[in-house]
């Protein structure tokens, strides 16, 4: 436990001193800022069905697809390429501690970036005058969805980084995995094959893993513990695979 805390503190410190972190943060906030401004314009033009917060979070996949691979691709792949993974693993730390520390640091950065977007909503409330433009419910639900789903997305990124020594391959693999998870499951949900009665069980399973459905439920204030379980168990599974990935490469290097 003590070693995990030392590793985590080190990872966080390295993130904070690295210029890449701040460049990524600036770009992320720039993009999300434009999205937010675009949403406000749409809403001032004509009244919409959904709350602005819900629409904002519906575009969660945009930063997820680009930020998560960028944040996580370096984590294990770079250490393997430099050879510092060998010096790390010959100290008393264990492989799970290393993987978890890297995951926790990347996840903390991911949360911090999303938390910064809260600033947009704050600015809106501050300058909106007498009316109450923001419904707190969908906002909190949206951020909760980001926090919960983030565990799985970041874990997938860490896994992608653990199976290669090339950062670019890690980034692309993470991107593809996330794409398959978010968009792929949506396509699978619309397949004609699943409308057959004999596939009812499979359809139920595919419906369960629809990420966009989870988003809708969260922003409507419905926090389904089964969905939370889906993300947390997926996260655990991905991290287990990452630990195996680090050790397997050791065995066959």
């Amino acid at each position: 436990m003590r070693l995990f805390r030392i590793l985590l503190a080190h990872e966080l410190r390295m993130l904070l001193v690295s210029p890449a972190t701040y460049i990524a943060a600036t770009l992320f906030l720039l993009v999300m800022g434009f999205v937010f401004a675009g949403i406000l314009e749409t809403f001032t033009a004509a009244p919409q069905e959904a709350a602005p917060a819900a629409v904002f979070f519906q575009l969660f996949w945009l930063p997820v697809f680009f930020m998560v691979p960028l944040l996580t691709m370096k984590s294990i792949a770079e250490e393997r390429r430099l050879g510092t993974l060998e010096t790390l693993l010959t100290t008393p730390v264990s492989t799970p501690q290393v993987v978890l520390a890297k995951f926790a640091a990347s996840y903390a950065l991911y949360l911090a970036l999303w938390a910064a977007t809260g600033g947009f909503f704050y600015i809106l409330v501050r300058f909106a005058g007498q009316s109450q433009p923001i419904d707190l419910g969908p906002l909190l639900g949206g951020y909760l969805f980001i926090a919960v789903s983030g565990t799985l997305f970041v874990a997938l990124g860490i896994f992608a980084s653990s199976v290669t020594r090339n950062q670019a391959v890690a980034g692309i693999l993470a991107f593809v995995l996330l794409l398959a998870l978010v968009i792929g499951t949506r396509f699978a949900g619309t397949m004609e094959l699943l409308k057959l009665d004999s596939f009812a069980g499979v359809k139920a399973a595919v419906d369960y893993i629809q990420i966009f459905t989870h988003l809708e439920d969260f922003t409507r204030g419905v926090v389904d513990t089964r969905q939370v379980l889906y993300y947390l168990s997926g996260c655990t599974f991905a991290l287990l695979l990452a630990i195996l990935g680090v050790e397997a490469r050791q065995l066959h290097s």
Partner: protein
Amino acid sequence: MPEPAILVRDLVKAYAGHPAVREVSFEVARGEIIGLLGPNGAGKSTTLRILTGYLPATSGRVEVCGIDVAANPADVKNLIGYMPENNPLPDDMRVREYLDLRARLKGLTRRHLAPRLDEVIHLCDLGRVRDRIIGKLSKGYRQRVGIADAILAEPPVIILDEPTIGLDPHQIIAVRNLIAGLRGRMTVLISSHILPEVEATCDRVVIINQGRVVAAGSPADLPREWLGPPAYELELAGPLEALPALLASVHPALSLVPSSAPPGPEGFAVIRLAASAETPDLRETLVNTLARDPRFRLRGLTRPRHTLEDVFLAATRPKAA
């Protein structure tokens, strides 16, 4: 007698049918400095990785300070300070920062941390670069950071893979002195190609070729074992036909090595004499005998020792499969 610091018995490591290490066995006593020599691809780095618990062996027994590496890899990590080949270091940290992190990972408590860091930085002569970023250091300094990291927690066993590679002669001497200073307190295992370094620093040497141990012994004994007793080399002018009789009068075991090399322009030829292993040092007797003999003029006499390089080349000569 305490158990040996390192015990390797019939170690085998095979990668998908290709055997990298084939039944390697050797022992290292406590406080010894031992060199592991071998051509590239001989299996040195693989053996060292197995010793540190980083790679699992295919079969065989490896013990560090009596603890089985395969059964207790976590315990063994506390006993070993390791510097891998190419000395990988993070390029974006400062020297002091990096050593601080490594010290804490290896279990140094806060109270001992700062004094030990200062001690190691002083020992490895890193005082001038303690706040510089590792990526900006020269190779010599980087190597010393790697060694500093290995000795940081004062482990009983230190394993250095190619510690002097790429260093200039000044830096090599600095590292050599550093390592020699550890003798007795810690057991040091060095893997290297740089034979004069190994000869100067190590108490014993193990030569590995194609995954097998082909020679083991001290740098003084190995040349005698492999290449026979040292010969004498004379630069002599005079009637060489009369030489065997003269040599017989000096010592019965002394013999002339036949050579077809003609004498040089001034009449001096290089003569080699062979002796058996038990003959004492005959240099003084030879000088006196030849000087008193009016037929011969002596210009030089040496006793060239075979070096470790000669042993290495003889032991690792490529064999027909």
